[in-house]
């Protein structure tokens, strides 16, 4: 392949009520093998996908939230989370799971994958992409 493309996965839906969040994550996992320039966008109800303390035992559904934490090992390290979406839902970044990656360039220092952005920054991010996959 000639060059890397910029892929953005847009997550706008809450988890569990519909399968879109889970199946979007499956695409991200497979896509990681293709070594493209990958970003994840969490806006609107998509921010609920990253909530800390998800416990699906009583709902008898698969808790896939832990998988987000594993993405750093696959070079998926840019989780753009929209501040306005959080605020509208009564949330702050502190309500989300800590998600980190190890930076090889800096002696494997642990760094946060979650990047809070404003709506305007999210719009600018969209405008830089080659491929935008929405779920």
């Amino acid at each position, binding site marked *: *392949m000639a060059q890397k*493309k910029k*892929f953005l996965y847009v997550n706008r839906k809450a988890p569990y009520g519909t*399968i*879109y969040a889970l*199946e979007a994550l*499956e*695409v991200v996992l*497979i*896509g990681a*093998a*293709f070594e*493209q320039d990958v970003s994840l966008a969490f806006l609107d109800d998509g921010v609920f996908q990253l909530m800390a303390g998800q416990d699906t035992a009583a709902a008898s559904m698969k808790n896939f939230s832990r998988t987000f934490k594993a993405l750093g090992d696959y070079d998926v390290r840019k989780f753009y989370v929209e501040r306005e979406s959080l605020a509208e839902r009564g949330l702050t970044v502190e309500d989300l799971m800590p998600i980190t990656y190890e930076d090889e360039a800096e002696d494997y220092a642990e760094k946060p994958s979650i990047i809070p952005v404003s709506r305007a920054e999210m719009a600018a991010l969209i405008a830089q992409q080659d*491929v*935008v*996959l*929405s*779920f």
Partner: protein
Amino acid sequence: MQLAIVVNEGPYTHQASDTAYHFTKAALEKGHGITRVFFYHDGVNNGTRLTVPPQDDRNLQKLWSELGEKHGLDLVVCIAAAQRRGILDADEARRHGKDASNLAPGFRISGLGQLIEAGIEADRLVVFGD
């Protein structure tokens, strides 16, 4: 130009499959190439040959199969999404010990890598869903 098409919903329940079909047809008529049509989420339900829509209604599975045959389209049903929803070809049915299969002619079952690959190879990717 090369276009990749993603269909995320099944036929009839949502209009996404109709829109994707008409869009794909119009793109071909304008001389564009179609890298691939990838069926994901409930979109895999477009690929069952067991549908019997009312006679006065369109048959979306047939429309896709025919468009695919006419233009040599690569109609790919995502394997993981298909298994969850009971869409199997004969090989898959055998592999999972099922006594029947239902994949429609002109569709093939493959992995999610085909979606990423289409995004890399195509000039544009368009998503149709709910």
